[in-house]
């Protein structure tokens, strides 16, 4: 006869309410783990989507995800010329926050290397890839934009031609994919007045130096667009991504690129590592601490609940001892209740999580490994939580059933 089940049945209401309470706590523990997994997954969406073997970034920087990286566009052609590299593309990525429909709209702007990359590899859920090298955008569904919707960014208007799912930046902002040129235009958009002021300032600087005074053409060009000045750089790109030819000697390519004094090269794995350490590591540690604290709190609450349930049963426990029940029967009664509560609370937490986590603003990913690990921890907690109750039960004398 299972005494634990019968006792639970006897005080079902309280047991169910308590289990739901512990379950909600465990749901939060699960959620914390899921948020961390979501952070990692979101952070790696771009790098994995790009599928680059090598990341070439500004010298001595850690790449576009960790800090500002600026490279001249010419690096793309230089990398493409290295033996063993089969494909080199510019990588443009930045985050913007603009106003749209009277609401702030924050997005990660990702440049696609038109015409090689039109976004065919993106996880499209509606619409199509880019069909022209300007004024089209593929937006993630989390941005709340609809197909055909027009978006004013800087001086230009872009039309949403495709929608993706699960494409977010490491900060959780939905990604919008433009051609690299458009992405740069959005990044380096400068109001007309600002351009006029900058040209005037350039002209004043040039006229103050010998170079400007002796070369009249310089003054003339300083008043025009910056692209007319050979000394002034064109819009920079964040990085160059390269794919190696099948069978290529990766070490030889790396050695070759390491010899360049203006760039730093990372493998795809190294870039992911830097990304995680740079942007997610602190959040991961924070979430881990929260999980540990919540797990401990769950353990303490469970222990107190089991202890209270045991206090309510002291008379029946004394009676069991009186009729000669061995200690293992009493230990089994308390421990089984604790384990049943832990297992049910875990189930409640999981079920609630399935309903609630999709409503969270950031992705919550529950992996089987994480769930199994938590289930193991809950089992251990349940056993430990019952020890206080067992200790109390062991101190009950059988004659207390009579008194």
């Amino acid at each position, binding site marked *: 006869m299972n*005494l634990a089940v019968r006792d639970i049945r006897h005080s079902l209401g309280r047991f169910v309410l308590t289990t739901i309470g512990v379950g909600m706590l465990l749901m939060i523990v699960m959620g914390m783990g899921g948020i961390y997994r979501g952070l990692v997954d979101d952070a790696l969406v771009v790098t994995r989507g790009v599928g680059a073997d090598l990341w070439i970034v500004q010298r001595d920087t850690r790449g576009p995800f960790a800090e500002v990286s600026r490279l001249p566009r010419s690096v793309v052609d230089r990398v493409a010329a290295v033996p063993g590299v089969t494909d080199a593309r510019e990588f443009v990525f930045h985050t913007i926050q603009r106003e749209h429909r009277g609401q702030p709209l924050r997005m990660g702007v990702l440049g696609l290397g038109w015409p090689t990359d039109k976004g065919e590899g993106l996880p499209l859920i509606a619409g199509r890839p880019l069909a022209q090298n300007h004024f089209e955008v593929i937006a993630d569904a989390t941005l709340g934009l609809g197909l055909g919707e027009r978006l004013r960014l800087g001086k230009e208007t872009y039309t949403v031609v495709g929608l993706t799912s699960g494409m977010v930046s490491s900060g959780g902002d939905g990604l919008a994919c433009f051609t690299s040129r458009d992405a740069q235009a959005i990044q380096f958009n400068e109001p007309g007045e600002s351009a006029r002021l900058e040209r005037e300032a350039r002209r004043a600087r040039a006229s103050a130096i010998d170079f400007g005074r002796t070369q009249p053409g310089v003054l003339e060009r300083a008043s025009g667009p910056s692209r007319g000045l050979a000394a002034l750089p064109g819009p920079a790109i964040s990085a160059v991504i390269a794919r190696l030819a099948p069978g290529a000697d990766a070490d030889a390519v790396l050695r070759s690129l390491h010899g360049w004094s203006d760039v730093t090269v990372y493998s795809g794995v190294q870039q992911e590592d830097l990304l995680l350490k740079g942007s997610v590591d602190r959040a991961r540690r924070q979430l881990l601490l929260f999980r540990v604290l919540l797990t401990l709190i769950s353990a303490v609450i469970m222990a107190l609940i089991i202890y209270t349930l045991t206090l309510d049963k002291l008379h029946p426990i004394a*009676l069991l*001892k*009186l009729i*000669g*029940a*061995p200690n293992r029967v009493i230990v089994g009664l308390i421990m089984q209740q604790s384990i049943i509560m832990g297992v049910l609370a875990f189930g409640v937490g999981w079920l609630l999580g399935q309903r609630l986590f999709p409503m969270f603003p950031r992705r919550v990913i529950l992996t089987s490994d994480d769930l199994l690990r938590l289930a193991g921890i809950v089992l251990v907690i349940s056993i430990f939580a019952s020890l206080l109750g067992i200790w109390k039960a062991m101190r009950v004398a059988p004659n207390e059933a009579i008194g």
Partner: protein
Amino acid sequence: MGEPLALETSGLTKVYGHGHTEVVALRDAGMRVRRGEIVALLGPSGAGKSTFLMCVGLINPPTRGRVAIGGVPVLDGSRALSDLRRFRREHIGFVFQKSNLIPFLNAVENIQIVGELIGRPAFLARRRAMELLDALGVGARAHNMPTQLSGGEQQRVTIARALANQPSLILADEPTAALDGTRGRQVMELFRDVAHEHGAGGIVVTHDHRALDVFDTVYEMEDGVLKPAHRAGIDAAVGHPTAR
């Protein structure tokens, strides 16, 4: 050699505290109960009756003295069986003033658990429990929880539980205190019948002198001293139902 006694005690002494706080609750108590014999134990409150039951029930071992149950010497001075709780569940049945049923088990489960504790398969323990409930007239209430039973029904279930392990010895501490006179007498008669029928010795602590004629033997206890009661006094008490 005759059949072993259901209970034999000698020199049973229980002392609480020590020094100037020492209280002697039981003094050299000796009692012999045959199988099928039912014994009443009378005495005022605080006389040591419950202490005696606790000692022979192996719940609160005596300070010194000897206890043999069913011919097995379970306590002898400082020596005791290694597992008194096991001996208790296999050889002793308890009935107390309050019904003392496990609140989260129904009537039949309260009895069945005793059978399972002594190692009977669940179905046999349940069958035996149902037989006992039927025999005690509460078979129809087998699936009711204790709170759904009347005081008399609860007491019958408790008696059934005390018999579930086919004990050598049944100990009852004021089992009729919560019952009216008629119902109390019925319970006492029930004790006598089951003790006779099951061949168990029974000791019933009671204040109810009206039903003393039901018992085979009557003992009195005062200030921890146990002695057989005078038959004349008992007859007088039975003849005058108001005498207490």
